[in-house]
């Protein structure tokens, strides 16, 4: 009968562990409270099912333990019971799915006023690009990438010149403003993940993926690469700083625009072509 005890210990132990565990998510720093709430809801529903099934089973093992003078009940089917359980389960599933889909709908619908930043992943580090004064990110191509143009911007794209290039692992963003991250990978899959923001999405070479969120707390947050990207995967870290407007502007001012990068590399002819294109618009 130790096994009854074992079942009880496993079931109740799991509940106790859950309640006392110091390993829990860090305080949320984005608008995705809905994700946390859905997890909590899922915890309640699934936790109740887990405990109920476990306790019922423990009871059965104890109550109906072998007795050579007894015979088991003979009941091949009980469609009423089976259908009742099926319907209850379906209701439980709907209760989980409906809120989940609502949150997902928010997650994939980028709000109109969101500003954009491009995140670039490559083995094994991060780069960022801001749209600059015109508010539009210039187009890029892998083919353009070289030492002078690490982002592969199209020099004949009029929106390119004022793009702000950040060739470093750290990024600053604005508090309380919806932000759409355009995600780009140059070599293999990566994933830009900050646990406190909850959101993540793989970065796939050959396409641009995205997600959005609104940071709600200033501070410093660690970036982890969440999609396996080769030997250096574990070392692909960085920081996001959520700033008030003033600090953010100061940081942006310290960065170089694409025009400045070209100029510093003595590519003024390219700048001229680009400016002409811009005037044509």
């Amino acid at each position, binding site marked *: 009968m130790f096994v009854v005890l074992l079942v009880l210990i496993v079931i109740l132990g799991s509940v106790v562990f859950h309640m006392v565990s110091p*390993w829990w998510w860090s305080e949320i720093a984005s608008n995705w409270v809905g994700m946390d709430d*859905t*997890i909590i809801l899922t915890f309640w529903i699934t936790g109740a099912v887990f405990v109920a*099934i476990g306790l019922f089973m423990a009871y*059965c093992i104890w109550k*109906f333990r072998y007795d050579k003078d007894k015979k088991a009940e003979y009941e*091949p089917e009980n469609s009423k019971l089976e259908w009742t359980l099926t319907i209850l389960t379906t209701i439980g599933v709907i209760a989980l799915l409906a809120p989940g889909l609502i949150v997902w709908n928010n997650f994939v619908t980028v709000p109109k006023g969101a500003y954009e930043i491009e995140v670039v992943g490559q083995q094994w580090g991060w780069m960022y690009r801001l749209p600059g004064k015109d508010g539009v990110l210039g187009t890029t191509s892998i083919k353009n990438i070289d030492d002078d143009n690490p982002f592969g911007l199209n020099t004949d794209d009029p929106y390119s010149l004022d793009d702000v290039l950040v060739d470093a692992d750290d990024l600053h963003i604005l508090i309380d403003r919806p932000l759409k991250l355009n995600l780009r990978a140059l070599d*293999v899959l990566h994933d830009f*993940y900050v646990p406190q923001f909850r959101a993540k999405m793989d970065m796939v070479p050959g396409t641009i993926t995205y997600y959005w969120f609104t940071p709600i707390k200033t501070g410093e947050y660690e970036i982890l690469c*969440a999609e396996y990207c080769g030997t250096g995967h574990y070392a692909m870290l960085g920081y996001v700083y959520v700033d008030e407007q003033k600090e953010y502007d100061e940081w942006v001012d310290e960065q170089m625009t694409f025009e400045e990068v070209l100029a510093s590399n003595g590519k003024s002819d390219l700048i001229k072509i680009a400016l002409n294109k811009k005037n044509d618009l």
Partner: protein
Amino acid sequence: MAADSYEDVVKNKESIPALEVAPQDLYHAKSFWTKYIFCQDAKVIGIQYGLTAVAIGLVGLVSSWLMRMQIAFPGFIPMDAAQYYQLVTMHGMIMVVYLLTALFLGGFGNYLIPLMVGARDMVFPYVNMVSFWVFFLAVIILASSYFVPGGPTGAGWTLYPPQAITSGTPGGDGLGIVLMLVSLAVFVIGFTMGGLNYVITVLQARTRGMTLMRLPLTVWGIFTATVLALFAFPALFVAGIMMTLDNMLGTSFFMPAIIQFGEKLTHEGGSPILFQHLFWFFGHPEVYIVALPAFGIVSDLISVHARKNIFGYRMMVWAIVIIGGLSFVVWAHHMYVAGMNPWFGFFFATTTLIIAVPTAIKVYNWVLTLWRGNIKLTLPMLFSIAFIITFVNGGLTGLFLGNVAVDVPLSDTYFVVAHFHMVMGIAPVLVILGSVYHWFPLITGRFLNERLGKIHFWVTFIGSYSIYFPMHYLGFMGVTRRYFEVFEGEAFTYSITGINQFITVAALVTGAAQFLFIYNIIVSSKFGKKAGKNPWKACSLEWRTKDVPPTHGNFDKELPVVYRWAYDYSVPGADEDYITQDTPPSAVANARAEQT
């Protein structure tokens, strides 16, 4: 079904239809080579599959030990990041494909299907023999990748391009990945030969009276899983071929234009996500290829050892079939954050959560089989109980990950690792262990040592639960998978060092207990307590052979005729608490059986 109703059978024995395939002459082995090596007897082939799968599975087990040492006690066993990722990759691929798939379908399928359906052998014994040797070749190719320059691939078992075939990944620019893909292709070829055998044997070679709705659930589980595998493995096969072409001939199925370490590669225009779709179109059914045989087998173990019919047999069969069907329309739940069109999330979250309903029905029916049973706490029963708890736990965490919005924070964290190990690692393994204790007396004529078995059970169940239950909480915290170095991320609310050490110790102990089990098998096969015929008093046909252990041809001169389902335990009015499937109604005239 009307022609098969119980009354009809009682009234008119002739209503039992004739065999669908006329009896065929079997090739009887004449030498050691044809009896034990190139053998055409499905039972021997099953054991060959089993031993090969376990042998390579031990490599997977030791890999997990080394991995866990690196995570908890870095430096204790010297290794670099490349070696760590090779261990991760080989552990995953070996366990999923070469151990679990091969053991359930090749091992249990071969041994049990002909016996349980009342056939003398598989319908194509020669092809069946070839199937094993092709599988064996696949294992050799896989193992050889350890010995090539650069070592085996370290691409993760999902083998996602572009990294799988580029130089930033161990084995990516060498032979490691090539051998992995070739081995998988060979595996699929071998499996197809065996798989067609299992399916056709179940459909065509059942003995007289063995209708589909009288099959033991073990057969239903293995049969459905095999059908899934025959549809799913081709996706892996073509993905493997396409990736090999990208790698060797410079095509661009999965390779877009990329620049790596400052160098532009020649590929252009391919889609890495296409590979993921193909991989998971195989990969998700693969979960059920492992799970469905476990579902079927555990149903039989519970029923036999609780001395009670499986509750809701028809519902159980339909649940297996429906789960199998649905498993083909949920694959992209592995890709919620892979960068596919976000609108797919709605569809795949819905299909995924729907699959919870038939799965829950199975759990209810297992537990309801215990209700008012007469439960013998034998080792197979203990492992079945452990399976139910583990599976319920792992199944419920699937409701987190399947619900697309909840998956966003949890994907690629240790929550996923904990979930899939519970649900498709530990749970099926517990069934395998339980069923070895159950069928060992059939295979060898002897029991496994009960005392060693009890120790094995306690350590395995408590140990594996201790490994994976706390691991979920690392995932909630945001600890990402596949990190070579333990690092205390700033987002983590508490140190992960201590808990990782605890998990590693649990893993070492749990793994060691499996060697005790192997020792038990070796010793008991020679010196175990003699079991005699049908020691568990089971109803199904595998226990009704002429000899124990069953010899080539399985049954006596006449094949058994089946009159009832496999679950007539504790029938009111019957003298014994079980009535075997081949017992005619006239022999148990007082028994008031309801179901046939």
